[in-house]
């Protein structure tokens, strides 16, 4: 291939969500102290109990230190150099309908492939669009309300459904759970709140799209999903950010509560800006996601992680009730200088609880990709079972794949199976493809997609294709 064509190819396919929306924002000065926590709480007009809740978290956070056990290395963020609240000026007086929303904001989402006007939106998918620290719009709210489903920014839910928020907030991920969860609890900005009433099957896919726009800010979203007894919901989150030379911090908390016989399917397509080819810039993605599954409930995490400079993330399931089911399907792809330490925890408390872990790690360039997983069978977990399959695919010889499985079994009848493989995309495989007329890029994408098949089939259909394409773009320049 001529070098011209090569260059064109690269430019044509770089990180496509990397643009910046130039709008006036209301951003507070960098720094973090109790006044900042109170300021955020006041901005959102929160009740006293929540302000206190945040302050409690902040005080706990001050006593904590950053975790250092993950297989990642990065300069410690200067938490006093970040701004903890930023919102578009136009959102100051909350728009009552989409017509009142700043067209510039709507255009941003349109450009990202997420039209917010219901008539243009993807059929069957309701979207909550979060821009820096605020939710811009939530679509299909009326239609969902007809089914009794609550889907709104958590900042509104605090006012409209205080009893639900108060009852569940922090019950799955306590304020002092870990360093980043404590930070999030103190300064969380916006995120989605979902409540599915008893016995209701949510009539649409729910999704939240997170966008970081402003520079030198952190994003701290908080999502809470409660599926009441016998209900069912499928939820998807997507994330992007502009391309910038400096690193930005994103520390989210997601809590899922699946009451008896309920089912929650939570999917993530994470495409935060990963930094450039030299490892400059990109998002630090430090996320705590956890679910509690009560009797006969089922929680399924599916994640496709292609973005971020550093990822630290372990969506977990506490299988509290008997017969509860936890699943974790993950594709984590790292290229260039990206680092990922991701996996899950399956905590089996109830009898006959079952968990499945399918993890697919793809490393290319000079990246480091680690799977870290804990399976714990508690003393009461009679007849509990886990199956873990952990596969790594290496592209090139300068990247690393690591597997850290932890197993703690305190019940003799519990069964834990673990399988792990490591493979490479070999020159011989690429040559076979090319000899049959298939170019390298297509060949790699075919091989990688084949490798990820078991996970992609767990994604909602609309997003499986998207995920495949995303991998292709993320692998840009990894071969040849």
């Amino acid at each position: 291939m001529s070098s011209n064509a090569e260059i064109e190819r690269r430019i044509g396919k770089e990180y496509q969500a990397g643009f910046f929306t130039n709008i006036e924002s209301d951003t507070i000065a960098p720094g973090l102290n109790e006044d900042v926590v109170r300021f955020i709480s006041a901005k959102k007009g929160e009740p006293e109990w929540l302000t206190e809740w945040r302050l409690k978290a902040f005080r706990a956070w001050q006593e904590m230190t950053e975790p250092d056990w993950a297989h990642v290395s990065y300069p410690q963020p200067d938490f006093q150099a970040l701004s903890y609240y930023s919102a578009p000026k136009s959102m100051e007086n909350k728009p009552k309908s989409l017509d009142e929303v700043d067209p510039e904001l709507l255009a941003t989402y349109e450009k990202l492939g997420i039209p917010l006007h219901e008539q243009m939106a993807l059929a069957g998918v309701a979207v909550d669009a979060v821009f820096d620290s605020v939710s811009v719009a939530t679509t299909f709210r009326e239609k969902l309300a007809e089914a009794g489903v609550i889907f709104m920014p958590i900042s509104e839910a605090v006012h409209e459904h205080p009893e639900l928020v108060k009852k569940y907030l922090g019950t799955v991920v306590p304020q002092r759970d870990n360093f980043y969860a404590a930070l999030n609890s103190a300064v969380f900005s916006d995120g989605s709140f979902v409540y599915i009433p008893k016995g209701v099957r949510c009539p649409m896919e729910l999704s939240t799209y997170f966008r970081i726009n402003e520079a030198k800010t952190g994003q701290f979203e908080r999502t809470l999903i409660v599926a009441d007894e016998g209900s069912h919901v499928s939820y998807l989150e997507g994330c992007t950010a502009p391309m910038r030379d400096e690193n930005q911090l994103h520390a989210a908390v997601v809590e899922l509560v699946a009451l008896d016989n309920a089912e929650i399917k939570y999917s993530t397509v994470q495409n935060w800006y990963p930094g450039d080819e030299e490892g400059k810039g990109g998002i630090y993605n430090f996320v705590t996601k956890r679910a509690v599954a009560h009797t006969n409930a089922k929680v399924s995490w599916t994640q496709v992680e292609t973005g971020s400079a550093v990822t630290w993330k372990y969506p977990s399931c506490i299988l509290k009730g008997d017969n509860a089911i936890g699943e974790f399907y993950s594709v984590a792809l790292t290229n260039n200088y990206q680092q990922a330490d991701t996996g899950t925890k399956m905590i089996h408390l109830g009898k006959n609880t079952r968990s499945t872990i399918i993890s697919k790690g793809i490393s290319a360039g000079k990246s480091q990709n680690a799977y870290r997983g804990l399976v714990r069978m508690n003393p009461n977990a009679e007849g509990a079972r886990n199956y873990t399959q952990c596969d790594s695919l290496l592209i090139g010889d300068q990247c690393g794949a690591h597997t850290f499985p932890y197993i703690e079994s305190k019940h003799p009848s519990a069964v834990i199976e673990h399988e792990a493989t490591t493979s490479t995309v070999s020159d011989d495989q690429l040559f076979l493809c090319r000899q049959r007329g298939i170019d390298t890029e297509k060949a790699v994408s075919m091989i990688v997609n084949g490798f990820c098949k078991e996970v992609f089939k767990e994604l909602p259909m609309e997003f499986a294709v998207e995920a495949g394409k995303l991998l292709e773009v993320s692998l840009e320049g990894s071969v040849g």
Partner: protein
Amino acid sequence: MISIKNLHANVEEKEILKGLDLDIKPGEVHAIMGPNGAGKSTLGNVLAGREGYEVTQGSATLNGKDILALEPEERAREGLFLAFQYPVEIPGVSNLEFLKASVDAVREHQGKEALDSVQFLKLAREKCKAVNLDASFLKRGVNEGFSGGEKKRNELMQMMLLEPQLCILDETDSGLDIDALQVVAEGVNAMRSAERSFIVVTHYQRLLDYIVPDYVHVLANGKIVKSGGKELALELEEKGYGWLENSDNGAE
């Protein structure tokens, strides 16, 4: 069809092809025989453009086009097909998906319309049948867990689908029992035409009872040391290669 002149090629700094000449006209079948390590597979790899095989001198043109200047996938799209001596496995990628991508790429290059999935599946099933592979092989990973013979028949099936101009078969007969050998030979014979040429690399004259070549060449020490008609294969079977290798060494 293909014209190879004074071809020299290195593998890891070591010269393996040392001035090879070969001229093949449309419709002809040329057999290449020779001792182990002579450079037969190297010839196929060089023509197909495998990385690590460095051409230091000479030329190769396919229908007048300098193919050595092309990327491997471009050579394939120009109609050059190499059936591998040791086909590699690609787990997770279904045979069908792989074949479709391959045929799509070649057809696109030829300016032909893409086949839809239904048409393609029908075609692929036909070709499976022709090489005596169960259609279930289309769903399996490319060569994944296939026996030696199944891999070779899979290669042949791909060749039938792609309908190349120049087919290079690298020891497609090795490891095949007599029945499978006949299936392969029938497949190749069915594809013989006035527009298509073959280079059949083999160790045994046995295959040439079924695929009757127009010419037989002996490759030893990186060049063609003897050429003849199909009766040369019989002579080689009787006398081995020793007498030719020696004469070549003597000449140097």
